[in-house]
């Protein structure tokens, strides 16, 4: 690692089975790009890879490798969504993003870091699984490839589209009525992997007795000031604010690509529609 950019971490698809100890899953912020990258280089979809945020990393390869860059275009001058051979001594230099918030660098064999509590994912605030990478760190390449690299991906989903997030009803949906989702928002600078804070028309906070309860990834919580917060991959496991909606699983990839100041609006869908959209996404992944 010559330079890690703004924030580069090792992630996999998350650390599950610890929420009842208050440890949320963490994992790739854009799971679609992450899984696609791993499939393209011939890994299992959960192999540890690098997640870069807004400004990418510069890496020198001490040994030959097969990599794939997926997600947003960080100006590396290399084709995205395609397996690429890198020779020993070559450098891959990513720069500032030209599209969304995150770019993944998947390497054939995976990043060879030991799992902590069953996962390689870094949970930034607590340090579970490690910390953001620093210049000079040497990352071993693992031996986790399971098949040959794939051909370049075709029909890449247009998954970052004008900040549209589809939502299903949250546990307190009936407190809010149907109109809460009508406003247009922008992503605040104070957003991070714990939560995406939105700025825009306040959602009236309904009166109601609310006991702290478990919260899910993508939950839209409305604190008293009415400015919604979307709980993201490093989210708290429990919370006391009411939640009118929850971003659908098929749009987690869109959440992962939202940058500060990007626009966001909501569209309400049923759970059946949400699962249909997820199936379409899975079909594309398995076509790789």
């Amino acid at each position: 690692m010559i330079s890690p950019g703004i924030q580069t971490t090792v992630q996999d698809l998350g650390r599950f089975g610890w929420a009842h100890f208050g440890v949320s899953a963490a994992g790739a912020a854009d799971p679609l790009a992450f899984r696609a990258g791993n499939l393209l280089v011939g890994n299992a979809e959960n192999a540890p890879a690098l997640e870069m945020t807004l400004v990418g990393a510069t890496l020198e390869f001490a040994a030959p490798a097969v990599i794939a860059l997926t997600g947003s275009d960080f100006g590396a001058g290399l084709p995205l969504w395609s397996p690429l051979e890198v020779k020993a001594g070559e450098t891959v230099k990513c720069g500032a993003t030209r599209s969304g918030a995150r770019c993944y660098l998947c390497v054939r064999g995976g990043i060879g870091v030991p799992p902590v509590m069953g996962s390689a994912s870094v949970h930034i605030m607590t340090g579970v699984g490690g910390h953001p990478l620093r210049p000079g760190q040497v990352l071993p390449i693992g031996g986790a490839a399971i098949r040959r690299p794939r051909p370049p991906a075709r029909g890449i989903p247009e998954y970052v589209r004008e900040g549209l997030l589809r939502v299903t009803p949250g546990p307190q949906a009936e407190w809010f009525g149907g109109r809460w989702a009508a406003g247009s928002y922008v992503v605040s600078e104070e957003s991070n992997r714990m939560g995406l804070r939105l700025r825009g028309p306040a959602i009236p906070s309904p009166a109601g007795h609310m006991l702290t309860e478990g919260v899910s990834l993508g939950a839209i919580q409305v604190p008293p000031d009415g400015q919604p917060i979307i709980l993201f991959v490093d989210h708290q496991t429990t919370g006391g604010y009411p939640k009118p909606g929850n971003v659908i699983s098929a749009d987690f990839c869109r959440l992962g690509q939202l940058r500060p100041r990007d626009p966001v609006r909501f569209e309400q869908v049923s759970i059946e529609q949400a699962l249909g959209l997820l199936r379409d996404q899975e079909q594309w992944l398995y076509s790789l």
Partner: protein
Amino acid sequence: MTIRPASDRSLLISFGDEISLRAHRQVKLLTRALEGIRGVLNLHPAYASVLVEFDPRLRTHSAIEDLVRDRLESASHAAEMPARTVEVPVRYGGESGPDLEDVARHTGLSPARVVELHAAADYLVYFVGFSTCFPYLGGLPAELSTPRLSAPRKHVPAGSVAIGGSQAGIYPLASPGGWRLIGRTSLRLFDPQGSPPPLLHMGDRVRFIPVPEDRA
């Protein structure tokens, strides 16, 4: 019991909307009964509810709902496991508990009396959550109830023993926080670098043992 979807991959199972021992027992039973089931990704217990997150490619809402009813039914016939009691040594006041004087002022008690009451009580870990192994403790004597800080501290040291309204808790890791800090323990509730199980589990009993400043 009410069951409703919280998202396209989770169900929220609620046992009323009050903090009670009865609800806590149901939460504990259900959490234990659902641990380790294929397709169930995470369980988020709280005071009177459990959020069940599942893999929507492997499970449906109705299949999870059936599973919840079945497992709860069979678990309710099993004998309750005896509660563990965990003793937590605490240095009260001074640098370890910078808010002890404020709690004393707010409650109209002397700092020594605050410590005495706090350490005499028997606490129950209702659940562990929020952010990384934070135990939500019931059993704080009503006289010690003190509102949270109006602006949270940016840095609360690991092991801080705290009061937030009528709740008691211990900060497992250094983090921001708005509860009143009355002491600190050197017990490690959780080590993010290793993989040992966290110290405190839902349903444990906790006693605080006052120790001199140079110990614990």
